[in-house]
């Protein structure tokens, strides 16, 4: 309502909904447009989880992370009929049997079973990677899309699962390298990369290249580097991108070199080895990127 309506007094479109007093107020002149806002929340109150579970009449929001989007029917195990009367023995037994079969036929065919398996696998990986929930949702959606386009036929479920997670991380701007994903999925990095390229190509999804800056805060955290150094490292990366020093270079290597340089500049030097280990690149890479940056950035270092 507030997005369409405007204040009749001053024409201001920025209206405030005050739910405590049930009023809509103009943020500019204080004119009260409405003083009887309906409450859109539930009519019941709950003081703890147990009560909330008991009172709420709706389920969880739909999610792509469960094979039926969380819309499955489950039969309660409690021996109450819909009027909350206690059921007699025969009825209870009947319901018990129904419940058992409902659980069994929930996964009706093999494709659904595969999807369920893949999605649990996705959840597991995302859990061990510590990704936020929306990344998992995105990954599940990518996997579903791939399944719908029949891209999984002839490929391993694990590979596609790992690739979807990686793709979701990229889409959400999360700094996760292929190395980390290959570590938790216990899969070959090349295989994940291959599946990833395949689904990106087939889904014709556009994924912007990784910005080395996203890795900087991660690496400096692992190295225990101060915020100021981190800031300088970010500046160095920005400059390097501007000067086109990063073309065709791995983002982790660039980030590592920038951090190394920044650590020298601010006087709490880390060794190339430490930086390289955190970034999972070789010392040679750090050295090469470092000298690239030094040559082109007009930074003078006194050793």
């Amino acid at each position, binding site marked *: 309502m507030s997005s369409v309506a405007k204040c009749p007094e001053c024409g201001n479109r920025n209206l405030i909904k005050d739910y405590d007093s049930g009023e809509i107020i103009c943020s500019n002149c204080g004119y009260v447009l409405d003083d009887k806002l309906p409450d859109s929340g539930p009519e019941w109150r709950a003081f703890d989880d147990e009560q909330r579970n008991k009172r709420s009449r709706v389920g969880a929001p739909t999610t792509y992370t469960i094979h039926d989007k969380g819309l499955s029917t489950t039969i309660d195990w409690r021996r109450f009929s819909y009027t909350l009367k206690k059921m007699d023995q025969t009825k209870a037994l009947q319901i018990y049997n129904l419940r058992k079969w409902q659980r069994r036929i929930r996964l009706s065919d093999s494709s659904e079973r595969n999807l369920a398996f893949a999605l649990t696998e996705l959840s597991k990986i995302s859990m061990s990677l510590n990704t936020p929930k929306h990344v998992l949702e995105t990954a599940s959606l990518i996997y579903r899309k791939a399944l719908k386009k029949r891209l999984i036929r002839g490929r391993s479920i694990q590979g596609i699962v790992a690739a979807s997670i990686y793709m979701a991380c990229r889409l959400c701007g999360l700094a996760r*390298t*292929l190395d980390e994903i290959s570590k938790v999925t216990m899969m070959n990095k090349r295989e994940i*990369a291959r599946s990833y*390229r395949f689904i*990106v*190509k087939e889904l014709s999804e556009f994924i*912007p*290249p*990784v910005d080395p800056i996203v890795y900087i805060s991660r690496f400096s955290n692992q190295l225990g580097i101060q915020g100021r150094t981190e800031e300088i490292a970010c500046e160095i990366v920005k400059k390097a*991108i501007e000067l*086109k020093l*990063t*073309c*065709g*270079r*791995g*983002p*982790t290597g660039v980030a590592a070199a920038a951090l190394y340089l920044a650590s020298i500049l601010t006087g709490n030097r880390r060794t190339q080895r430490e930086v390289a280990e955190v970034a999972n690149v070789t010392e040679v890479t750090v050295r090469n990127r470092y000298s690239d940056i030094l040559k082109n950035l007009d930074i003078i270092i006194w050793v």
Partner: protein
Amino acid sequence: MSKVKPIIQIENVVVSVTLNQSLDLMSVVKALPDTVEYEPEQFPGLIFRLKKPKTATLIFNSGRMVCTGAKSEDLAIKAVKRVIRELKRSGIVLIGKPEIKIQNIVASANMGGRIDLEKAVFTLGRTMYEPEQFPGLIYRMDDPKVVILLFASGKLVCTGAKKEEEVKQAVYKLQKKLEEEDLITYE
């Protein structure tokens, strides 16, 4: 037209040949024991290596041949003809005319300037650039239908062309596009 002319070099031409008859590979081995390699345990095809033009031809008992390694269209066809002549000379009966078809041409080229890959990702369309996995940018061109691996140094690899002309077309088209979008800087 730009001042800098890309240097294009064809690296490999793959040609397939259909003879429309089945071949007995064992008799070929008996007829030409010194020139061919045949190990059915390892690979079902027979390998026929030529010194000039330097190519390798795979011959299968279905009567199909694949010739790889030639540096140009003409050389590839020459190589196939030579292989067929050798087969005939050694007493293998071949009837009818072989169907020769060029399947793939791989070429390398140098654009002569540095390329801003990071900007190119956004402007070229149908690209893939994953520096974490591969330092080159993969560009799928629709017409001519080729795939180009483009590197920051200005060198590129073009695969998937069926004619030599297509390679040239693709490289020039790419150069034009790169110059229009200001993605290439000449030194």
